[in-house]
């Protein structure tokens, strides 16, 4: 129990289960998935499909955050990428041709990559703080999208393009294939190669990493470029869903959702250790939460408040102090002599996660008691049990 509680995936998964339970109580058929024409339908599939763009963006965001950075411009990149693709298709002579769509996607992704490289340039070469550097594109990007659409909301009809989001492959929506597929590929690449370790080293101690010969600048730049590219892909999924190039509203606030997903997943905003599986769970929590609002029929007036309450709860539960309380409470109930040993290292690590870096920056005197509690509670508890 203690080990499970200390696992970084525990609270996001618990939140997910709770949300699903609430939905199932309100609507017993919530989890039902039906097969029509060989395609899967149902709330879980809808949630996954709706979560696809956020999943892509949170993926890039996790890697950027691991290097001590942040990318606020992803929402704007979503708008730019969708606008470019749709404008190209609408201007072409044959909007329905797969070739047109392919070129449109290519241009959009290329532009998104350039925007990501721009962010990386500002951060790594000019040394601008990531939050400021990406704030530039966050504002300017929407302007670029406006420029592309000429201030209009361009609606387009193109079956192949629409299919990128709502089409089906082996019964599962294309958007899910794209997002989950890329997420899995990147996760495997990051952990199978040395990329993950070198990114973490860069995030934890950039100076030491440089002296150790880590190409921190190149790595960081690459990660911003990838984040831009993934946001571009998300922009294509978003615009293929609405089939309208909306410079103002496409991907609005998605950067905040992505950061939230990363934090819920247990990666610290202060950089360093990251875990993509946590981010995946975080994205599912947010997507399910949005669905829950509809299922429970919560009034639109109180929707933001409701979402805030859930998010606050999950984030609090992820914080090191609260996690430690729960772990202590759990072991008092159940006598285990050293159940926590295996998890000790890992969890001390992840614990920094939801703290959002606040604790890490604290002066030593402030931080010491927390760190002490983290370690010392174990022997303390054992004593409790033996009495």
């Amino acid at each position, binding site marked *: 129990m203690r080990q499970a509680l200390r696992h970084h995936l525990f609270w996001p998964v618990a939140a997910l289960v709770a949300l699903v339970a609430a939905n199932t109580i309100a609507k017993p058929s919530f989890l039902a998935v039906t097969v029509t024409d060989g395609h899967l339908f149902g709330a879980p599939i809808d949630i996954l499909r709706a979560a696809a763009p956020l999943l892509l963006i949170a993926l890039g965001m996790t890697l950027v955050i691991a290097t001590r950075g942040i990318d606020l411009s992803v929402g704007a990149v979503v708008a730019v990428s969708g606008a470019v693709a749709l404008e190209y298709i609408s201007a072409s002579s044959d909007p329905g041709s797969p070739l047109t769509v392919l070129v449109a996607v290519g241009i959009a992704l290329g532009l998104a990559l350039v925007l990501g490289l721009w962010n990386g340039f500002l951060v790594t070469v000019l040394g601008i703080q990531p939050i400021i550097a990406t704030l530039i594109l966050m504002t300017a990007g929407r302007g670029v999208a406006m420029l592309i659409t000429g201030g209009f909301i361009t609606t387009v009809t193109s079956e192949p393009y629409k299919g990128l989001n709502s089409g089906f492959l082996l019964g599962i929506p294309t958007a899910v294939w794209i997002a989950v597929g890329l997420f899995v590929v990147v996760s495997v690449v990051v952990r*199978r*190669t*040395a*990329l993950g*370790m*070198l990114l*973490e*080293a860069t995030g*934890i*101690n950039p*100076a*030491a*990493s*440089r*002296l*150790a*010969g*880590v*190409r921190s600048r190149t*790595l960081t730049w690459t990660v911003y470029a990838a984040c831009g590219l993934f946001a571009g892909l998300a922009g294509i999924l978003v615009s293929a869903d609405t089939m309208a190039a909306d410079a103002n509203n496409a991907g609005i606030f998605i950067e905040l959702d992505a950061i939230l997903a990363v934090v819920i997943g247990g990666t610290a905003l202060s950089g*360093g*250790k990251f875990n993509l599986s946590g981010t995946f769970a975080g994205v599912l929590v947010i997507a399910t939460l949005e669905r829950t609002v509809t299922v429970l029929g919560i009034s639109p007036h109180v929707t933001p408040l409701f979402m805030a309450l859930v998010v606050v709860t999950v984030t609090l539960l992820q914080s090191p102090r609260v996690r430690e309380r729960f772990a202590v409470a759990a072991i008092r109930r159940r006598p285990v002599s*050293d159940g*926590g*040993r295996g998890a*000790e*290292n890992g969890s*001390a*690590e992840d614990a920094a996660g939801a703290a959002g870096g606040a604790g890490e920056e604290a*002066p*030593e*005197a402030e931080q*010491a*008691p927390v760190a*002490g*509690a983290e*370690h*010392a*509670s*174990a*022997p*303390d508890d*054992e*004593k409790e049990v033996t009495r």
Partner: protein
Amino acid sequence: MTTQPVVELTGITVEFPPVTALAGVDFRLYPGEIHALMGENGAGKSTLIKALTGVYQTSSGTIAVDGTERRFTGPGDARAHGISTVYQEVNLCGNLTVAENIMLGAAEPRMLGGLHWPRMRRLAAQHLERMGLDIDPGSSLDSHSLAVQQLVAICRATVSDCKVLILDEPTSSLDADEVESLFAVMRRLRDSGVAILFVSHFLDQIYEVSDRMTVLRNGGLVGEWATAELAAGDLVKHMIGKSAQVLESVERGHDAARPGDGEPRLQAIGLGRKGSIQPYDLEVYPGEVVGLAGLLGSGRTELARLLTGADRSDSGTTLVEGTARKLHNPRAAMAHGIAYTSEDRKGEGIVDGLTVRENIVLAMQAERGWVRPLPRRQVDEIVAGYIDQLGIRPADPEALVRNLSGGNQQKVLLARWLATAPKLLVLDEPTRGIDVGAKAEIQKLVAELAAEGMSVVFISAELEEVLRLSHRIAVLRDRKVVATVGSEGTTTDHIVDLIARGDITEGDAA
């Protein structure tokens, strides 16, 4: 000592599973004594202090203050009961005034819900006077030397009724005069009845100032002695648990193989950087240890950083085995077999959130690039090899480096660079702030590596150490290499002389 101890710890055990940091340690501190807490890094000194002040929870044992059993919830609670701690790094606010630093949060005088500034300044001045410190309480703390800041920290610690003062390595960044003024303050406090717990790596300081000492080793209590009754040699034996033979063997290994002339492995010609170090010439031959001697700020570190590409030079050339090479960054230097460990172990050395394994393979992996990960089996072999060879404790590849003692972190860093099989190893203060045993091991390792043909540039603030290990010594003063001398027949006095008269003979030295 028939009086009651002001602090009495009995059977204190602290565990960070699976590690036992302190095992059943007893400790007594009497009023009016300076008590030295001795032990190697990782012996449990800091843990004992943190257990006493409530930073760590004890899993067994009792803590009694003035005969009453207590369990503090943290340093603040301990301070409220008269136990104050001053750490190695000054934990004050440099942008505030001396008076504010002394009084705020402790006993600041209030008036109408605000602060009574004139009174605060007056009280602070009184406290400073009590310490024998003649500085303006209204001046900003930043404007004073580190030593004065340290004394201000002690002043702050003793403002409110202080029965016990814990000084954790207060002298590591002070020079001799500053240490003397610190000791004067300590003696004054002792004579007024304060019990002082003193931690230091400098044996001569311990013998100068302490009355009694408690020795810890590997988390256990070795014993308690009156300082006058324990000879320094015996103290070292108690601390490292074996006789000081290790230290002697290093000296014997010296000069076994004086490197031949041949071609220098690395040659710097007129290498310099404006505002950092004046152009210098230096060559290092295969199998040679070149020591750098000079005071703090003399340019030792700056020289090493130019040599290894950590900083970019703006004049001069570097020849690696006879060929001119541009070493613009550490990677370029690594490609030519040059490795550099920074003096700033925490800031530029270890990656504290990663494991011992990851830290050791970091440079090797960085050289290969992320696309070609080292096979896990090879990594495990390398890491196990170095843990064994260098005696890294705990011998757990998955332990977080942050939880290792200073000496062991240093060994992890050495392992990181040895794993890249460098031809030239530049070690900047590799033995600073680590204990006697680890220090001897690192010195021995350097001698062995040189004997096997590796070139080493060795930087240390301790002249004896530099002299003992090096074949040649470059002496620096005021950001300039003022002399290069062979170590044979040279004494520390001679080098001190060179450092001291550097400015007088500037004309002929250049």
